[in-house]
């Protein structure tokens, strides 16, 4: 394709091609600090392309292609090219990755141990991880956490954090503006702005961490902590895994082990300050 970039996020090597320069330039900005091995073959390919040649210029709209595609996905305007790239990267990993069990979950780590947070969009898992990652935690990822089937370790996938709506202001106030991507207003997912993880989190992206605490956050309502049984955590994580079925018995073994060895809680919180306090409280108990 006319423009392309290679990006390594955790264990996944991406190759992203585009009919336009702008989305690639935006990716170059976001991923400039990531270690790169030019000799490594790509695990996943994303293509951002115009449906017809003239649509590169006339009302340019970005279609997302690659090894895996969503057939009826609507194209995005070129101003949202970075979002298109992010969606394409997520899709390739969610549908194509087989080396690890993939959880739709954020994660942060401390002292080689991982806190994994799983929840629907809007649960605040991404914002909590981003805020913890600005404190004394290592951000492992805001969207996916990988579980190594043999060792049971969690592996990081620290892509650019996708901040949405209110989370943008909350995080932007605390970080250097150079670590923020362009604001994309009014996307199908609301306002979006990417945050580049801290340099130490990127440098440590290949270091595994032992799962020590599983949280299922829910944004809204009074602060509450509810212990969760192994069975419920198992059911929720099968739903949160995009490749559980594809992994067969390896996935079954990895997940039963994860829920047995890792204490799990559901938490509700009215604001991120309370959410972080609950997380730190549970971590202090789990880390004993």
């Amino acid at each position, binding site marked *: 394709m006319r423009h392309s970039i290679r990006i390594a996020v955790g264990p996944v090597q991406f190759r992203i091609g585009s009919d336009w320069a702008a989305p690639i330039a935006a990716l170059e900005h976001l991923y400039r600090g990531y270690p790169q091995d030019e000799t490594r073959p790509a695990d996943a390919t994303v293509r951002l392309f115009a449906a017809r040649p003239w649509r590169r210029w006339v009302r340019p709209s970005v279609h997302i292609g690659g090894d895996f595609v969503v057939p009826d996905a609507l194209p995005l305007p070129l101003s949202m090219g970075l979002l298109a790239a992010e969606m394409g990267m997520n899709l390739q990993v969610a549908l194509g990755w087989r080396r690890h069990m993939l959880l739709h979950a954020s994660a942060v780590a401390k002292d080689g141990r991982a806190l994994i947070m799983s929840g629907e969009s809007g649960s605040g898992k991404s914002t909590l991880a981003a805020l913890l990652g600005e404190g004394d935690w290592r951000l492992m990822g805001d969207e996916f956490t990988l579980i190594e089937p043999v060792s049971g370790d969690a592996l990081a996938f620290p892509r650019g954090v996708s901040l949405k709506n209110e989370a943008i202001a909350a995080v932007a106030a605390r970080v250097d503006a150079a670590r923020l991507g362009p604001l994309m207003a009014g996307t199908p997912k609301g306002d979006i702005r990417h945050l580049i993880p801290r340099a130490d989190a990127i440098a440590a992206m290949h270091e595994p961490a032992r799962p020590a605490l599983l949280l299922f956050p829910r944004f809204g309502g009074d602060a509450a902590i509810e212990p969760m*049984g*192994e*069975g*419920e955590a*198992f*059911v929720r994580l*099968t739903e949160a895994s995009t490749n559980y*079925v594809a992994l*067969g*018995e390896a996935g*079954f*073994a990895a997940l*039963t082990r994860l*829920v*047995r060895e890792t204490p799990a809680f559901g938490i509700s919180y009215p604001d991120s300050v309370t959410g972080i306090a609950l997380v730190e409280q549970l971590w202090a108990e789990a880390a004993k």
Partner: protein
Amino acid sequence: MPDPIYRAAPPDALRVEPLGELTAIFDRRSMQTHLVVSPMPEILEAMVADGCEAVTLAAQLAESFDFDGVDDVQPILAERLSELAAMGLVARA
């Protein structure tokens, strides 16, 4: 109608992992995960490979558990067995 006879899955076909109140069962033949609650795991454990009907199973389970009467338990077991058969975890002989 005579009580149907059910056969347990072949040895090594199922991987059974108790997870608190739930039991997760991975069926290596179908690659499916089943989540069941008591008494399903107990029934599967009591089943023998060469086939049994609900009444035999009721008698076997009565030895391990406190039953008031085998007659009361038999229709319930027959129902559970047909559910296990629907999941493919046991088979009609």
